[in-house]
């Protein structure tokens, strides 16, 4: 875990709600993700931390699969209960 509750998405267990802080990616990819609702501040739930393999999250009522590597580029913070 990094400081102040910030961590990579890959460290989050199934069923946990998190808030997106930062995506470590190029502009093009970031914009594409933003269009799908994945941008700083977005809240979502980890459905399946696929260890190893793709990652499933629930974001704004829809299911998204994040490919390998993608989840490792997303920095999140646990949501307050």
């Amino acid at each position: 875990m990094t400081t102040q509750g910030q961590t990579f998405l890959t460290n989050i267990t199934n069923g946990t709600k998190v808030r997106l802080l930062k995506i470590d990616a190029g502009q093009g990819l970031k914009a594409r993700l933003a269009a799908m609702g994945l941008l700083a501040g977005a809240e979502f739930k980890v459905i399946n931390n696929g260890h190893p393999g793709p990652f499933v999250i629930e974001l704004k009522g829809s299911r998204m699969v994040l490919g390998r590597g993608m989840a490792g580029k997303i920095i999140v913070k646990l949501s307050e209960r």
Partner: protein
Amino acid sequence: MIPPMAEKIKKITVALAGNPNSGKTTIFNSLTGMRQHVGNYPGVTVEKKEGFCRYQDYELDIIDLPGTYSLTAYSTEEVVSRNFIIEQKPDVVVDVVDASNIERNLYLAVQLMELNVPLVLAFNMSDIARQKGLVFDIEKLSALLEVRIVQTVGNKKQGIDELLDGIIQTAQQQPKNPASLIKYGSEIEKEIEKLQQKFDELRNDRWTVIKLLEQDADVLGHIHNEEIVISVMESILRLKNIFGEEPEIIIADRRYGFISGACQETVKNTVEIRHNRSDMIDTVMTHKIFGLPIFIAMMYIVFDLTFRFSEWPMGWLEMFFGWLGRGISGFWSAGSDNILKSLLVDGIIGGVGGVVVFLPNIMLLFAAIAILEDSGYMARAAFVTDRLMHKIGLHGKSFIPMLIGFGCSVPAIMACRILENRRNRITTILVMPLFSCGAKLTIYALIIPAFFAEQWRGPVMWLIYFIGIALAVIAAKILRITLLKGETIPYVMELPPYRMPTAKSVLLHMWERGWLYLKKAGTIILLLSIILWAAARYPRMNAEKLAGLNDAEAQTAMLKYSVIGRAGSTLEPALKPLGFDYKIATALIGSMAAKEVFVAQMGIVYAVSEHDDASVLQEKLRSDYTPLQGFCVMLFCLISAPCIATIAITRSETGRIGWAIFQWAGLTTLAYMVTFVVYQVGMLIF
């Protein structure tokens, strides 16, 4: 008699926009029914669907735009969509919104509003939204967004008339000006204002200004005034300094903020959103261990059923062509050697008929693919195969074009556009012909029943498909560590909830692909059949030389003497180690143009078209060759020389003829090596 009224039909052009998985296609199908056709947008290989609909006094021309999440310049689909809207100025744009997933879907709606187009929102799948406990205050939301909203259930045809009313009313109204509805906060608004005041051409074009601040490459490319570009760059730098982030991301954030504000007041969630059923199915379907075996089993079932159920309609088609051939032969005396009779019966009916017979196979396979797609399983299949795909240096998303590749390499190679990474895309394109397409299926459908007992047909078919996949995997892996080295880019994809596919959508899909296949049969295959018929018939042998031979011997002698027989004979020594004789070599020459021609060619080589069914050809094959040879033919056809259409599309999609040549030569070499090994080893064993 009543005098004919002057035509008062008014035309309305409607563009249909929406997210992927929003049910846009079901709305399109409900509006247009069978009155639709598929084409391409000029200059790009994005599919363009257009349909027509008559409602009251109006003729609606409906264009189904590609499904997109946004209107940025990052994908061809998005550029195509927005250019269509900007340049063609449709009278109405309908945005199909998945009502059960409203916030994300409204993102596109907001961008359409910014484009200042006459807009109607179709809140689709409103039944599912209700089940999920979502309650909308449509009136209020409509007022907040200043846009007309209609609730629909596309697959049950609910709300379609209301949608049509909405379209017509919107077309007649003066468009409102909701473009400035969304405010981006004082910092960004200040920059927008500055730019609009400074440059006259931007004054009434808020959309362009926003796109410029978003650093949209396409819009930027159309600006020729250097000063504007410099001013925009300055604005972007100022905003970056304030926010510590690209303005693009801030703008996206503000749009979501606007949407979420509007939804807070108008959408009530009475139950916590749950995907219980989908989740339960997913724990099995995407299981770490069982996911892949389930996927393989599903594919097996698909191919097995395709084979089983197409048997009867194929029988009927065979009977029909047999009857047609006999009917036409009846105009000439028995045993006549009239050119026209031979052309019609042996060339055209034999050639085209032999290919059309496999139409049921093709249609059933596409129906199965449509079911997999519509049910939502296709996205899971990509998920399940991601692990595997990653190992060969591709990702799960490559899997979708590959699955289409089982239908036809041509659309599959076009579908590779969904892969953003160029190396991934080229790798996927290059190995695509290794996936057994519908045309290769016609070859298997001829060979397998000829050499293998009933209970082995399914397994042999599966084995052939499997070998193709395995070779594609190996080839891709090799390409990714040699010619096309590089990191794989992570991907993100939506997992739609499982849905019951509608019969209509499956049937439409099946019909569409079947029709394309028939068109191919009526054009290129017809032409090639005639050419091959002539090449197999000419030059003619002297009648004296045939004296003393029986019919079958004479046929063989004449074929050997013809253009194609000579070419086949020339190649025979080279193909002998693979178990092929000059007849197979002859058919292989034909199949270089289009794989299904192999079947037609074998039919002509054996002159079976006058007989009434394909089992005659299969019987002849059985008496001439061993099952090992049959298997090697399938293997060679699977791997070798992609058809002309594939070569053409590989060239245009990779941008270089070099890749197409490399693909053709590489695969043919591979085919030779693999078949050589299989035949030689097989000879030792059997």
